[in-house]
């Protein structure tokens, strides 16, 4: 295989050719330079076909060398769909081709290509659906053939470390080409904190492969330097500014509202919030549509320039160069200097170029064909010829045998990020490009994105825009001279042939687009969806201009009203790993102040909302029994806790809650349901009047954030003068429950603990071991219980102290699962578990908390409606017989084969020795004593008996003792 590395170049100096790196491509060892991309190294090694196209499996090779298209999607070290021309080689890399079997050179699926004439446009909608049974079979084959890269299911790369980083510059400049660099300079000189983000490893943009000398620049020291050196000089100057940070090899993939910029640097996600943003993304080679425009061996002007100047690779041996502007001679000159025989320069213009490069090209003996352009490329797997003719595509001028066709048809602004600024680009007839003139406030744009221009002009404009951004001024208008403007060629050179590919990613031809328009898909948006052009891996970055122009043309409109389809983030595909960052989950884990104590005691944990709570400490049934028989303790720190005070506190509570609380004396507690505006029961809790005018409300764990937000929402939207303290995280809490709880409390505190002195549903202040605590005589378990609330920082000390003091009564911790059994024995409902989004509170049995003969309160109107309607369904406690299977939560209740209800909570009661639960049933099944058939998940029924009371201690004697 001939080595295509250049040892020298006639017109420019090349960087050292070290060839120090080795990697494998489909198991073959390839030598590479450290500054190679995978694609440049493969090209140097003479490998022309790197991948196959999506639909027809047509061969794909190096095209723009910039990763805009999807020509070179490869699997690298197990990662699929890596862009070969954007990715630097690394020593030992394992690179594999995708979507081709057995190899990209001989791809069996290329048979699709020969079927092209048989497939109508939109064929996938027109085939395989009749008869009906055919589709599932056809689909299996289609799914086998579909897709580009293979997801690595081995999981070997899963431990990649991803990181999120944050920046808050005054000004963020996106793009380090001449205009971007100049605007950086201006903003830095104004003393602003500036962040420059550049996609490439080096700064300079297209200047790094441009040997043209800078002239007429306002900064005189740059005049006479090559553009390469001028960009280097600015870079050197920028390095002296301490108020500038430069991120290279970092690609901005999205611009969101309020100047939020998202950028990727390898495995890192940068989230940048900038005061002002300067967009200088530049322009890239136009995608020219003509017959066979997708064959390997066709490359863009900048593509070959990059290959030669940055990687020292000779792009081909015999080249035909197609162009329509002076820059094409620079490209031709670089080709000649690299030893490529340039057979012809086909220039669509009538007048010959007068640049230095044009003179050299001419001197080297290359003929220049005016008023000419390409009609067709020849070849199957690679280019072996080119046909040149007139621009109208009617008259052929000449044919050439060549292995390289260079398309230098001008440049299209890289509009992706500008479009994300929510502005629709329009066709600028004068400048012959799609352009966004004015962005919303805080966003600026400069450079080739307004049409290409000379280095001097870009520098001048960049400086002015940088200054404007620093001063918060209007964006200065961009100016382009007549010489700067490149008159666009037809988007499709209309010579004969059926392979004019508009979209190379999805293999969509002009003919297919036209046929689709004839079917009625006559807007660029529907045309795109129907043919899927512009929807492949490049997302239109390569073809947007051609798509928009041709869609306009073929639907009978002029280019001047053409619009590209909306650009959506991300600008380049970004992995889930980068977006997710280090966390595997965004919901934080919340632990109580006593978490470690539970862990030491052998607890297993469950998720209660964001919280980790002890499920149990081993044997649930034993835990439940031991609490009933003696003394238990449970960590209830996760309850929501709100302190409510202020002049209107009681009015606010009267409005928020369905009950009446004006007469709630200090030191007293009341249970309350919480009702939504729709009259639905969505939460419950207790309200304690802890001291004159100060109320302390506890809510359930799962709802604590929602309730807090709800209360705050009502405060800010009404006139209530109320203060709410969110005490949820500030106070830890335990509940001590069981016969011996009073005895333990008497040891712990120094207040009257007698039934009369501290009755059920009342609250007291006390101190335990010097720590101030609030005591609440409430309980969910049905036993004599006390809840102790105290500052969270004493969590472990308090737990340890209580456990030590309780040892003589054999105190045992119990978990949530045990508590659920205990509360079920008492028939207490749990909001969210025994209720749903439509629960009528009267039907749920909490009507006693609703006092609807008071002034307006939340839910009043709908509660009246519920009350008037009467009970239709009911939440009832039930019991099973000893020995019955315990149904799972959620199973159905049936009557005569029809579902009439459902079980919401179902457990085995250790103390009673049979299954108990709560269930929603139709009202005609709710009379105590009714037998209900509960359908087990695995089939078969168990019969429950409806109770009218708690299964355990129905009178509440123990609780109130």
């Amino acid at each position, binding site marked *: 295989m001939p080595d295509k590395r250049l040892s020298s170049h006639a017109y420019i100096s090349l960087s050292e050719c070290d060839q120090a790196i080795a990697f494998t491509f489909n198991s073959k060892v390839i030598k590479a330079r450290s500054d190679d991309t995978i694609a440049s190294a493969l090209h140097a090694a003479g490998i022309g076909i790197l991948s196959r196209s999506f639909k027809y499996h047509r061969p794909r090779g190096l095209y723009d060398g910039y990763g805009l298209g999807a020509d070179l999607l490869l699997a690298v070290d197990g990662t699929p769909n890596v862009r070969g021309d954007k990715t630097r080689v690394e020593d030992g890399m394992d690179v594999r081709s995708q979507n081709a079997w057995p190899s990209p050179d001989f791809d069996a699926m290329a048979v699709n290509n020969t079927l092209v004439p048989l497939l109508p446009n939109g064929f996938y909608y027109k085939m395989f*659906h009749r008869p009906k049974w055919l589709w599932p079979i056809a689909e299996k084959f289609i799914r086998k053939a579909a897709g580009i890269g293979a997801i690595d299911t081995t999981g070997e790369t899963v431990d990649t470390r991803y990181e999120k980083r944050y920046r808050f510059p005054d000004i963020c400049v996106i793009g380090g080409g001449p205009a971007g660099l100049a605007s950086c300079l201006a903003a830095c000189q104004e003393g602003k904190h500036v962040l420059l983000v550049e996609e490439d490893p080096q700064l300079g943009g297209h200047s790094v492969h441009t040997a043209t000398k800078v002239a007429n620049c306002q900064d005189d020291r740059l005049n006479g330097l090559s553009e390469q050196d001028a960009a280097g000089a600015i870079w050197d100057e920028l390095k002296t500014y301490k108020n500038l940070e430069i991120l290279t090899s970092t690609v901005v993939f999205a611009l969101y509202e309020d100047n939020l910029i998202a950028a990727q640097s390898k495995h890192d996600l940068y989230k940048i919030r900038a005061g002002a943003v300067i967009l200088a993304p530049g322009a890239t080679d136009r995608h020219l549509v003509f017959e066979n425009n997708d064959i390997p061996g066709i490359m863009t002007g900048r593509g070959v320039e990059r290959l030669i100047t940055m990687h020292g690779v000779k792009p081909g041996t015999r080249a035909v160069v197609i162009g329509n502007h002076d820059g094409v001679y620079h490209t031709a000159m670089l080709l000649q200097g690299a030893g490529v025989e340039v057979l012809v320069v086909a220039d669509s213009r009538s007048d010959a170029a007068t640049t230095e490069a044009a003179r050299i090209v001419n001197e080297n003996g290359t003929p220049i064909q005016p008023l000419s352009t390409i009609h067709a490329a020849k070849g199957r797997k690679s280019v072996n010829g080119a046909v040149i003719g007139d621009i109208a595509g009617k008259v052929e001028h000449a044919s050439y045998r060549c292995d390289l066709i260079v398309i230098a048809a001008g440049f299209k602004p890289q509009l992706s990020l500008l479009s994300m600024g929510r502005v629709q680009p329009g066709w600028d007839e004068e400048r012959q490009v799609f352009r966004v003139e004015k962005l919303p406030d805080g966003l600026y744009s400069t450079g080739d994105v307004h049409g290409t221009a000379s280095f001097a002009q870009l520098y001048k404009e960049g400086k002015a825009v940088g200054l404007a951004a620093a001063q918060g001024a209007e964006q200065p208008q961009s100016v382009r001279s007549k010489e700067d403007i490149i008159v666009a060629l037809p988007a499709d050179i209309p010579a004969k042939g059926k392979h004019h590919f508009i979209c190379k990613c999805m293999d969509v031809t002009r003919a297919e687009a036209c046929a689709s328009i004839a*079917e009625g898909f006559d807007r660029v948006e529907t045309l795109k969806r129907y043919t899927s052009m512009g929807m492949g891996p490049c997302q239109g970055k390569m073809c947007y201009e051609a798509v928009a122009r041709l869609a306009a043309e073929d639907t009978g409109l002029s280019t001047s009203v053409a619009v590209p389809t909306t650009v959506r983030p991300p600008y380049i595909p970004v992995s889930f790993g980068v977006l997710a960052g280090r966390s595997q*989950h965004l919901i934080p884990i919340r632990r109580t102040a006593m978490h470690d104590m539970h862990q030491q005691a052998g607890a297993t944990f469950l998720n209660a909302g964001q919280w980790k709570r002890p499920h149990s400490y081993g044997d649930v049934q034993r835990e439940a029994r031991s609490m009933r028989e003696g003394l238990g303790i449970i960590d209830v720190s996760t309850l929501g806790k709100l302190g409510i005070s202020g002049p209107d506190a009681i009015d606010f509570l009267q409005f928020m809650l369905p009950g009446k609380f004006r007469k709630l004396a200090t030191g007293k507690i009341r249970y309350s349901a919480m009702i939504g505006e729709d009259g639905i029961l969505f939460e419950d809790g207790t309200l304690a009047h802890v001291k004159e005018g100060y109320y302390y409300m506890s809510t359930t764990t799962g709802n604590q954030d929602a309730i807090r937000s709800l209360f705050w929402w009502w405060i800010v939207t009404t006139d209530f003068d109320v203060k709410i303290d969110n005490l949820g995280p500030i106070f830890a809490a335990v509940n001590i429950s069981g016969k011996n709880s009073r005895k333990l409390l008497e040891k712990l505190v120094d207040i009257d603990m007698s039934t009369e002195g501290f009755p059920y549903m009342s609250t007291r202040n006390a101190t335990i071991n010097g720590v101030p605590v609030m005591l609440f005589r409430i309980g969910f378990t049905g036993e004599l219980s006390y809840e102790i609330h105290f500052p969270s920082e004493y969590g472990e000390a308090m737990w340890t102290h209580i456990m030590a003091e309780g040892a003589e009564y054999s105190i045992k911790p119990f978990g949530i699962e045990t508590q659920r059994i205990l509360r079920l024995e008492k028939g207490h409902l749990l909001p969210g578990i025994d209720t749903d*989004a439509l629960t009528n509170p009267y039907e749920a049995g909490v009507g006693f908390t609703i006092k609807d003969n008071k002034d307006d309160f939340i839910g009043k109107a709908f509660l009246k409606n519920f009350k008037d309607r009467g009970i239709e369904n009911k939440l009832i406690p039930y019991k099973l017989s000893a020995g019955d299977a315990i149904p799972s939560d959620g199973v159905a209740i049936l009557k005569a084969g029809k579902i009439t209800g459902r079980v919401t909570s179902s457990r085995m009661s250790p103390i009673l020795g049979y299954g108990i639960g709560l269930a929603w049933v139709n009202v005609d099944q709710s009379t105590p004593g009714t037998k209900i058939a509960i359908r087990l998940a695995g089939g078969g029924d168990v019969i429950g008996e409806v109770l009218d009371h708690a299964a355990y201690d129905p009178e509440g004697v123990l609780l109130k003792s």
Partner: protein
Amino acid sequence: MAKQMWRTYDLKKTYDIVIIGGGAHGLATAYYLAKMGVKNVAVLEARYPGYGGSGRNTAILRSNYRTEEGIKFYDQSLGLYENLSTELNYNLMFSQQGHFTLGHTESSTSGLVTRAENNKALGVNSFMLTPQEIKKKLPEINISSHARYPILGALYHPPGGIIRHDAVVWAYGRGADKGGVEIHNLTEVQDILVKNGKVEGVKTNRGTIYAKKVISVVAGWSSEVCRLAGVKLPFVTHPLQALVTESYKPWLHHVVVSSTLHIYLSQTDRGELVCGDGIDGYPHYGMRSTLGFMEAFSAHVLELFPILHNVKVQRQWAGLCDMTPDYSPIISPIDEIEGFYVNGGWGTYGFKASPASGFNTAKMLAEGKVPDMIKPFSYNRFGENRLVGEKAAASVSS
């Protein structure tokens, strides 16, 4: 030359029925009207067919809802979908690959059990699977108990799947056109003419037209359109975001949904993973994408499928959802205005309803009386406080 999907017409002065909105529901309504023999019908579309939710959803179909009303309605819809490619002679690529709803908490799993039982009782194929059974069908899923929210079980629904959403719009449009319905694109309704409690017609950017019956079928824009007739709807409009990855060799052959993790994903026949999240937490008409959505989705999907860490997102977008208080739609006459109807409130679950919505809406318009199937979805139910509770089954949009 292939035949045109739909023809273009001049606007007539009068129609029997005017359908505002050329999405899947509007065009399905038009198609079934034509099939029922009602010919003088116009569909007025402000932009192009499928601009709104029909072209922005994630194309998941299923019928395993929770309430009897919901289950029966969506079961009819799924049944119509199953035969739609053949009926409309257009390959809609309905991939009946099976649908998982994962349960990660006791309460959500209990809700899934209730759905399984209700489905079973009404003849819908939907049942619970254990984590090990899930793993058999989805070998790469993470069922570890160390996950932030471990998987406790799943509701599995074999007939659920995905379809090519744009194709549904186009095929209904073509069918309606064939049946004589006029589809008017770029025709924006600017006012709805009401006189003496009766609808008279609509004013558009192309002129005023008269009709005995006018129906709004515009999903996310329902509040705005119905306001033109003076009708206030109990809708709150939220954005809903989605994303799609690059194309990969098909690896995932089921729809996977997790409401605890707020995610759902499936892989199309083209190899792209189509993914979505719950609605954005704020009402908004701007169809804007956010970074927060992509970050949250990514973190959550990696909890389920860690191997996807180097799979790349290619595009993100947003649509609008008109949410009702009970997560069920409105398909109903408006009593106050004779001849004015509303089909809306489709929230995040409208696309899968398109055929049943179109069929029953057409029946309602053609026969002048509300079919039993959609009686529960009346406009008046909110005033009467007779809601259809699909919140548990419809949240997280899938």
